[in-house]
């Protein structure tokens, strides 16, 4: 190894998928997906529903298991070794379409639970951390409420703060605004744009093309379980190479 360790860590991709395939029974949901995401890179994945885009990111933290190919996160291979899975999950935060906040816990407890249980952070420190991130998503005043008492946009911002409390190196967003009323989408996107501007490594599955244009370093288009096209946003939006990409963009950008 010629490179010193730190330099190697810099050049090594944060996330790498090599020929990843996955089946649900006979249906192939991922077909030899190759993807490299560098440190501090922001990638937006789009594509028609059922194209496998959510499955890709759910494989990155092993919420779903890939059956062929290899996945590396920060140089650690995601395999059957449970230690690896645990390490990777600690470093990879995820935000879901349906928020998935813990309804029986207050906002503050939602945020402190994982740091206290997984990172063994003392309660006081965990609470300070939680308040820090609640301020960042601009709802510190909701700390003692229960999720059901918040609006959808507020819940999703709590979910983002909850993931950030683990201080992950990567954030995965699985259609974070798809379940929101239109007037709440912006407040969530604003928080995500701020994160992107701080160069958090991010993979977002989303149909918010305005957001994609603003923050993405790379655009990925998926169809039928394959990555069909990958390009920087400029080229992706102005001059898509693939027919299916063009069709898809035509459909979602036309209105």
């Amino acid at each position, binding site marked *: 190894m010629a490179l010193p360790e730190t330099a190697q860590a810099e050049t090594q991709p944060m996330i790498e998928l090599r020929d990843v395939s996955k089946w649900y029974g006979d249906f192939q949901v991922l077909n030899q997906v190759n993807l490299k995401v560098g440190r501090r890179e922001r990638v937006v994945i789009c594509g028609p529903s059922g194209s496998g885009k959510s499955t890709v990111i759910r494989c990155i*933290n092993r919420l779903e298991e890939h059956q062929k190919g290899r996945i590396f996160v920060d140089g650690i291979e995601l395999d059957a070794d449970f230690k690896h899975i645990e390490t990777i999950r600690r470093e990879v935060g995820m935000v879901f379409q349906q928020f998935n906040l813990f309804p029986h816990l207050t906002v503050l407890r939602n945020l402190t639970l994982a740091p206290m249980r997984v990172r063994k952070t003392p309660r006081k420190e965990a609470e300070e951390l939680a308040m820090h991130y609640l301020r960042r998503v601009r709802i510190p005043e909701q700390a003692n409420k229960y999720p059901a008492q918040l609006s959808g946009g507020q819940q999703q911002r709590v979910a983002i703060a909850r993931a950030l409390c683990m201080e992950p190196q990567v954030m995965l967003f699985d259609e974070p605004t798809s379940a929101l009323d239109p007037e709440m989408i912006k407040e969530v996107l604003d928080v995500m744009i701020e994160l992107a501007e701080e160069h958090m490594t991010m993979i977002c599955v989303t149909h918010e093309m305005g957001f994609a244009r603003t923050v993405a370093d790379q655009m990925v288009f998926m169809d039928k379980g394959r990555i069909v096209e990958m390009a920087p946003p400029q080229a992706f939006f102005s001059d898509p190479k693939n027919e299916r990409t063009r069709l898809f963009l035509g459909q979602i950008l036309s209105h």
Partner: protein
Amino acid sequence: MISFTLWDLARNLLLAARWTLLLSAIAFLGGGIGGLLLLVLRYSGRAPVKRAVALYIELLQGTPLLMQLFLVFFGLPLLGIDVSPLLAAAVSLTLYASAYLGEIWRGCVDAVPRGQWDASASLGMRYFTQLRDVILPQAMRIALPPTVGFLVQLVKSTALASIVGFNELTKTGEILTNATFQPFLIYGLVAAIYFAICYPLTFFARALERRLGLAG
């Protein structure tokens, strides 16, 4: 014929009700522990273990409690184990309750949305932590009404223990009836005592449900 005052009858029945309460408590505690064990085995055990648990539940739910009681009471002595009526009743009610509670609680854990497992896993929590801090607290709220419903059922089921000669509330009622020839009065009192045990349970459950409902 000896004559009994109403108070004599009531006092004897109330004293016997202690045994009904004891038997209910043993069966519920034992069944609760057993049910929890079945739940954990069903969720984390290997495939053959899961099948064994399912079979156990099917068998106990598919046969009359009275037959289970007879099998324990008459069966164990065949194996050279001497069983008192209390022990036989406690064992069979515990087995019975564990099967029902295991099944009720499994339904409740299943009712916790899939996303709760996803979210807690994505935060790096281990299986045990997920269960303890995220899944079970939510499952418990769902489980409260059916669990209390079953507990009420269980209290009433302890009456079957009278058949193997265990001197609880129903058996004492029978004995008093034989002595006084006033079955309507005696069994009326017996029923009233069962009701006095069961009604507060339902009432308490409703209050608890309201309190837990605030955090949901």
